[in-house]
């Protein structure tokens, strides 16, 4: 039987901000984006704000209706990354199997290190909880169980600054009465589908005939059934196993709605530059481009396309994105936010077939050299040291640097 911990830093962004500003600690506090740039949603809130009903993801004005004295703080991602790193340094003292799930959550597999730690998993969980509180000044809740799914479930049960143990012998008593939506990967739509077949609790799910679930939910039906029965066997990744990058993307909610194709092109140019620079940083090239478009009624479309030559330069990424855009967007409504991702990634050193009849591939290599030079200039003199003339057409739309401002790495449970 494995011993897996899931450590979740409580109200992470808000806790860090409250630590640095003792004067606001006793007020309801929320970390929120900049409303002037139309990023005005609640990203995190402290316990006091939570008690007043403030929820993550709602607009600032909605939150202020619930909590009139709400203190708003802008996010500082550099600080959060530092805290996330410091927390992981503590976890690594107990195991070499530590896997991040977002900035504030980590699984720790103690199975192989337990013989050397001379302690039981619950005491180690307690030590970790105490150390994070003393050394980082923020609280964590820890779930202790025999697989990743139940460990995560446990860390959500008691908050803040608490430990929940879900042992194999008693998991049916603890987990099965919980609503099925508490299980990882049961979202709103899956919960609705399960409700239709009278599955309301995790216990209902576990006792259901797996064939019925498969028919209703496809392969997910079986996976969720295994989760509910405590049969999740997914390993906690080792320190040396780096995650394989599948796509690199950037997106933005624009300061004003995009009305014309030129607006879209301007924003895509900035995004394509960032995506291409990040591809070069990882020594990757992409063979496809994916775009996401969201109009001002929040309706979203996503389209993708393969490219002829693998590349890590902004021009072909931008052109492919614009081609997709022209093909698939009919301007029913102005656009509120757009994203751009490089997909089908290959290593940059993969050989490329040059053509005898045209010089597209060679031109790509020349362009790559130019962009690498731009990278070096930006590295030495800052992002604004060099920019495209087109960026001056509308500095409000193009005046952001997705590469440095806002690189959040999404995580997936299944790899």
């Amino acid at each position, binding site marked *: 039987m494995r011993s897996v911990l899931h450590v979740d830093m409580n109200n992470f962004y808000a806790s860090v901000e409250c*630590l*640095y*500003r*003792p004067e606001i600690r006793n007020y309801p506090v929320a970390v929120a984006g900049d409303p002037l740039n139309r990023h005005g949603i609640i990203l995190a809130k402290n316990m006091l704000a939570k008690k007043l009903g403030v929820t993550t993801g709602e607009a600032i004005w909605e939150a202020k209706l619930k909590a009139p004295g709400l203190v708003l703080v802008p996010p500082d991602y550099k600080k959060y990354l530092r*805290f996330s790193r*410091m927390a992981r340094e503590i976890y690594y003292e107990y195991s070499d199997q530590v896997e991040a799930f977002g900035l504030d959550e980590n699984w720790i597999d103690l199975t192989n290190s337990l013989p050397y730690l001379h302690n039981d998993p619950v005491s180690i969980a307690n030590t970790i909880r105490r150390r994070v*509180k*003393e*050394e*980082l*000044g*923020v609280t964590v809740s820890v779930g202790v169980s025999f697989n990743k799914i139940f460990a995560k479930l446990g860390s959500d049960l008691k908050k803040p600054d608490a430990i929940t143990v879900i042992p194999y012998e008693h998991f049916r008593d603890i987990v099965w009465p919980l609503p099925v939506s508490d299980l990882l990967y049961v979202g709103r739509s899956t919960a609705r589908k399960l409700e239709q077949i009278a599955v309301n609790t995790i216990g209902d799910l576990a006792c259901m005939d797996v064939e019925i679930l498969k028919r209703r939910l496809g392969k997910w039906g079986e996976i969720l059934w295994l989760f509910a029965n405590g049969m999740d066997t997914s390993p906690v990744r080792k320190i040396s196993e780096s995650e394989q990058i599948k796509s690199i993307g950037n997106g933005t909610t624009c300061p004003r709605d995009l009305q014309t194709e030129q607006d879209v092109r301007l924003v895509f140019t900035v995004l394509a530059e960032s995506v291409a620079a990040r591809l070069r940083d990882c020594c990757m090239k992409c063979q496809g481009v994916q775009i996401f478009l969201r109009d001002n009624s929040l309706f979203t479309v996503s389209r993708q396309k393969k490219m002829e030559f693998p590349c890590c330069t902004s021009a072909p990424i931008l052109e492919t994105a614009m081609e997709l855009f022209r093909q698939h967007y009919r301007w029913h409504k102005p656009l509120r936010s757009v994203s751009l991702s490089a997909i089908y990634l290959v290593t940059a050193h993969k050989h490329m077939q040059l053509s005898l009849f045209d010089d597209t591939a060679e031109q790509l290599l020349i362009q790559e050299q130019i962009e690498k030079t731009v990278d070096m200039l930006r590295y030495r003199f800052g992002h604004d040291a060099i920019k495209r003339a087109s960026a001056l057409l509308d500095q409000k739309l193009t005046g952001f640097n997705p590469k440095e401002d806002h690189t959040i790495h999404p995580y997936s449970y299944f790899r």
Partner: protein
Amino acid sequence: MKINLEVNAKFDLDGTVRPTSIIWEDGRVFAVDRVLDMRRAASLKAGGVGMRYTCKICGKTVMLWNEEGKWFMEK
């Protein structure tokens, strides 16, 4: 409350940093007689996280924090 301080420190060959004296707000210099403890810790009063040095200064136990090169103490 947080008091930011100028600090004189010794950097050992192994990378250990130890404060040797602190320069108070009015310019007076106080020697650090002994460093009793060093560990990473949060300061809830001043608001910060870094290496915390528990020092003896003029017979008093004083805690100094070094947060990414910036030194401070609690008031």
